[in-house]
């Protein structure tokens, strides 16, 4: 009896030895903070004073009337859609052209992927110069073909477009790589059959390729969307949420509430709304993933 007990005990210790190095930081910096954030979101804590009071759902109720929050929510969705749709379409286009190996294909892939490697802060600074109103390249080129300069980063709509362009530019290569691997997993025999049937390339694409890569497409839409919702660096460099809040996303609003205004309660509530959105997207992703076969 004793022997069996000590045996299972040592088994348990062994498991613990293997999982503890990850579990300790995971608990300290992920799981416990999550519960803690939920708690903070029900208070009016201001970080500095030790006293705070429990305010119930007030922070959440206030959101619904807060025009800043609603604007940020709207901006987040506009930004996410404006990034995801072009990224997935361009990524697929590049993958279709590059999934077969030919001379130079590796180079093209590397070139298209390369922006993903570089620090977003540094490349955003470069783009901020390209889109500078007075001496930026974009306006100089527009001037050459006879258009009036556009105050890219000083007007709301165009500022959002600039941030989208930078984000798409950085992310499209990553999406392309996933499409390449999906396209290469389509069995060659399917294409051969369609050749015998005399399908045109377009029908082949719509009838065979698209349905077979649709799980990957769906996965990439969701993952790109989650990434877009959590974009911060390019906003901080290019717009700081401005002009007048027109590029303030939920994450940026959280940043300002928590680390500029020290309104920890509302900030925590905002962060939980971000969690709600990404959580729903992740759940949709896993549910749909179960139903589809991945190629």
């Amino acid at each position, binding site marked *: 009896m004793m022997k069996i007990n000590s045996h299972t005990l040592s088994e348990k210790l062994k498991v613990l030895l293997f999982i503890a190095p990850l579990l300790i930081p995971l608990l300290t910096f992920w799981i416990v*903070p999550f519960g803690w954030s939920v708690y903070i979101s029900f208070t009016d804590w201001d970080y500095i004073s030790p006293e705070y009071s429990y305010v119930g759902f007030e922070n959440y109720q206030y959101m619904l009337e807060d025009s800043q929050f609603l604007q940020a929510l709207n901006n987040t969705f506009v930004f996410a859609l404006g990034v995801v749709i072009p990224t997935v379409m361009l990524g697929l286009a*590049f993958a279709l*052209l590059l999934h077969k190996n030919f001379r130079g294909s590796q180079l093209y892939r590397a070139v298209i992927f390369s922006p993903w490697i570089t620090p977003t802060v540094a490349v955003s*600074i470069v783009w901020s110069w390209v889109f500078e109103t007075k*001496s930026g390249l974009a306006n100089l080129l527009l001037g050459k073909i006879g258009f009036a300069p556009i105050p890219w980063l000083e007007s709301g709509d165009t500022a959002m477009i600039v941030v989208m362009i930078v984000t798409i530019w950085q992310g499209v290569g990553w999406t392309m790589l996933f499409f390449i*691997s999906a396209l290469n997993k389509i069995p060659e025999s399917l294409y051969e059959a369609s050749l015998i049937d005399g399908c045109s390339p377009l029908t082949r694409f719509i009838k065979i390729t698209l349905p077979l890569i649709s799980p990957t497409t769906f996965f990439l839409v969701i993952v790109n969307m989650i990434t877009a919702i959590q974009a911060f660096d390019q906003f901080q460099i290019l717009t700081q949420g401005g002009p007048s809040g027109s590029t303030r996303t939920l994450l940026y609003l959280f940043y300002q509430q928590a680390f500029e205004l020290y309104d920890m309660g509302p900030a925590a509530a905002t*962060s939980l709304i971000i969690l709600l959105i*990404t959580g729903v997207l992740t759940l949709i992703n896993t549910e749909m993933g179960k139903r589809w076969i991945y190629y």
Partner: protein
Amino acid sequence: MTTQTIPLPRAMQQDEKSTLTVLLALFKQRKTVTNGVSKSIFSKSLKHVFLIFSGLIMVFPFVWMLMGSMKSNDEIFSNPMNLFPEQFRWESFIEAFNSAPFGLYIMNSFTVALFTTLIVIVNSAMFAYAITQLKFRSQTLLYFVVMACYMLPGAVTYIPSYITLANLGLLDSHTGLVISNAASVFGVFYLRQVFLKVHPSLIEAARIDGAGEVKILWAIVLPQCKAALATLFLITFITNYNSYMWPSLLITSQDLNLIATGIRQFFIAEGNYGLNWSQIMAASSIAVLPLLTLFIIFQKTILSGIADNGVKE
């Protein structure tokens, strides 16, 4: 005068006509050999034109950055459209290095990223080994807990993690950065998939030979997954090297800045009036070039690693 000018357009017209006929002939020829060589050459060159064009757009910001860093500010002001500088001025790099400690920032980023990555590799490998090769209850539960953290946005954890680090006295320190990034959900996720592919008989055989679990992980499982480990190493290293938001909240001393936070400070200090693009571009190049070099060296590992073992259930 007028008579002299007339023949020229006429000649051009004739020229145009002749090129047209050639084109038409080519087209007819193409039609007669449908699906033949000329069509594939035509579509192939169209493909290359599109790819070259896209490739140029993708690398253009890097080129513009490098060229900008080597122009003088006067030249940027007077001839803003020139791609190549009148003369290559390497001085702006020296000036940038003199006005902010970029070498130190890069060292800081490198150290923090390296230590974080090493910890992540070790603890993710051990955890992934436990949930794939050891038998214990709550195995799947543990995996689900980790995966649930995957959807947890950083923002949700920032405020409490900040307070925890403040309590530990680790705000504004590299140790604080490293330990708060020490758990990587992606690492577990990625290595779990890879470890599942290791043939169970190998592990069984080693167990029968009396090898301990740590030894099995170290001597049998890990050597089988070298490529995947390399990819995980590179991706984790690059993400940590480039990370900005969390370090910008933790680090307040200038000499502890990572490259991303350091370069932003420099940008704010120098960039307010758009007068010093040359040095700012030099600073950006200092931040970007090490990573582009890293990528050129390891592109195969990175590209195939993401494409083959990507985040896929």
